[in-house]
């Protein structure tokens, strides 16, 4: 892997450092089977599915579309078993393996949609013989997409969501204030998952649903992850919350003010001469000049437009720009082309 990654190296469920590919044999096997399109794997779409749902997004780095068909020969929709479960997944090895696991769990047990709802992310992790802590969100994604698909099926069959215990989950995906801006996760969603998955620390939250895993700004800001944890579990419970320090690697550039060093008058004079003498001549040839900075008597500038990359550029700088500025502003000016 590229050696620039902060915090590279994952942890297993016991908190031991493991290599990124220290997946269980089961995870690797499911991934390889899916890659080889082996018989019995579940990758694919279903035309006219009885239930379909998705979770994740392209910008988050993983997404899953889950769909199923039920046995239509059974007249009572509540007793129809899922006969075909399929997924399409964008994501890492464990995301693809988790999707296979979800479909296999459902098909192997011949579950109805209502029974399938009982599958949790922990069942998926068990089926996979474990996942590294940082990859747990892959299994959570599977459980979320399953819920969405069953909700879709219930909607089509006119089965009230309350009967399925899904009414607590607002359709429209937990609309509300966005807490984790990197992964676009809302406060209601995070609160729900904190309770459902018994998440006690910020690191738990990040591992399970990715929230707080990128820029980290939401960790301790008002209304952020720590506040949600404190609010849910009480302050003392979560005060030990620790999280890897992954800081935003891209602070905004600052630029200095040159005012203190550059006499305003000089800058204005330079501008005036550029406008009156230099620019018209350059524009005549389809070019232009940008004054980048003036430091002391040094004028940093560059030719743009048609002059850019022109073989005669150094000469133009000297004969047009330097001569005019020295003659009309200050004979000691030094022109520095950039």
């Amino acid at each position: 892997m590229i050696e620039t990654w902060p915090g590279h190296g994952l942890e297993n469920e016991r908190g031991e450092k493991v290599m990124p590919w220290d997946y269980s044999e089961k995870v690797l096997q499911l991934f390889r089977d899916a890659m080889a399109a082996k018989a019995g794997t579940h990758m694919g779409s279903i035309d006219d599915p009885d239930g379909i749902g998705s979770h994740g997004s392209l910008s988050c780095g993983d997404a899953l579309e889950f769909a199923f068909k039920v046995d239509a020969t059974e007249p009572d929709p509540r007793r129809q078993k899922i006969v075909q479960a399929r997924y399409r997944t964008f994501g890492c090895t464990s995301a693809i393996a988790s999707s296979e696991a979800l479909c296999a769990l459902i098909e192997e047990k011949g579950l109805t949609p209502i029974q399938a709802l009982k599958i949790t992310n922990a069942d998926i992790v068990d089926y996979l013989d474990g996942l590294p802590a940082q990859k747990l969100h892959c299994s959570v994604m599977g459980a979320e997409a399953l819920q969405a698909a069953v909700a879709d099926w219930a909607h089509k069959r006119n089965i009230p969501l309350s009967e399925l215990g899904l009414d607590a989950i607002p359709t429209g995906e937990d609309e509300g204030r966005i807490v984790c801006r990197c992964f676009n996760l809302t406060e209601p969603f995070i609160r729900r998952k904190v309770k459902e998955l018994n998440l006690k620390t910020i690191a738990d939250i990040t591992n399970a649903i990715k929230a707080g895993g990128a820029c980290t700004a939401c960790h301790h800001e008002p209304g952020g992850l720590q506040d949600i944890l404190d609010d849910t579990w009480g302050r003392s419970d979560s005060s030990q919350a620790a999280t890897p320090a992954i800081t935003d690697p891209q602070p905004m550039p600052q630029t200095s003010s040159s005012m203190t060093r550059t006499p305003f008058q000089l800058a204005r004079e330079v501008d005036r001469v550029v406008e009156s003498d230099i620019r018209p001549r350059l524009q005549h040839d389809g070019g232009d000049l940008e004054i980048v900075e003036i430091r002391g008597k040094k004028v940093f500038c560059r030719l743009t437009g048609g002059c850019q990359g022109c073989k005669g550029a150094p000469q133009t700088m000297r004969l047009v720009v330097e001569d005019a500025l020295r003659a009309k502003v200050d004979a000691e000016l030094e022109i520095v082309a950039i």
Partner: protein
Amino acid sequence: MNDRIIYLDNNATTPVADEVLQAMIPFLKEQFFNPSSTYPQARKAAEAVEAARESVARLLGAGSKSEIIFNGGATEGNNSAIWGAARANPARRHVITTAVEHPAVLEVVREMEREGFRATYLPVNRHGMLDAADLIRAIQDDTAVVSIMHANNETGVIFPIGELAALVKKVDPDVVFHTDATQTAGKMRLDLQGELKNVDLLTISGHKLHAPKGVGAMFVRRGSRWRPWQLGGHQERGRRAGTENVASIVGLGAAARLVMTHPNHSTAMRDRLEKAIKDQIPNLFINGEGAPRLANTTNVAFEFVEGESILLALNDHGICVSSGSACTSGSLDPSHVLKAMAVPFTAAHGSLRISTSMFSTDDEIDAVIDVLPTVIARLRAISPYWDVRTNSPRTDVDIFIQGKYR
């Protein structure tokens, strides 16, 4: 599974060359002496260190071998260079670097911010290139040090260090200019008396040019402001204390001679690889393609697939490469370099870095050309964003807004 290893991750590390290893062995065995010892038996070790210094000075085009300080690698070198320059300019409290540096520079500058320095992180454009105007404008009255990498480890984009250093010196000759040349030493001609004559400090790492890990060197121009970082002994003229890592230093010298006799990396291999995958795989782009790049580095972004899956699938064919994907690391954020370049979110997670060395072969490139299109095609078939029938992105992906129940 495949027993053959196709190693194309040479920007991460390189294998130790045979001649390097052979040069080192005597200094791990019978020539084990401490070069500082006074008895004549130790003289050979001391002489070997000096011969290596001469070779490294020639590799960098330095004017004098006394400007070369051996150390423990580029991370140490970067820490030492930046802190040492700042401490030699105690009245100055501002540092300039770029948003795309290796963490061995970025983390140092962040730590300086925590200690009260102010810092400017220069942005890059879509091609990964800096704007010299941003650099000039960023220089303040109390700027102590400017640290800008020579070439980026992830994309191979080369910064015009000679020009940038000259501009900095024009604005203020007392600003110390440092460059991390980890990725260029041995891959490009370096000339510290010519093109790079305005560079004060330059750091390199042995293991990127077929020397062992844990050894590197720093160039400190005679007369430049810099204070030693590691104290506690007279070694390296008091500029880097600690008994010399003689065998590894000898290895670094041998590696410097080796890469100098090897012609400059040709872009032929890289260009052939890039053309072949572009011809066979839709929806990809080469990161940094619009900028000058190292001849050995290809950073390619595949839309709608995720990098870690690509790595694992390629590794099942024995191919070792790396990715800027978040999933290959403990972080969930994709590469800070690709983010700084504003690589579209459809591809930020699907980047792959392929980096050759002087020992890479056409057969190895052929293996990648052979396997990669199949791997990408299959991962796209699995991806919900891809339409296999048209072999193009699905047009109805707006249904994929995060977690919407339909």
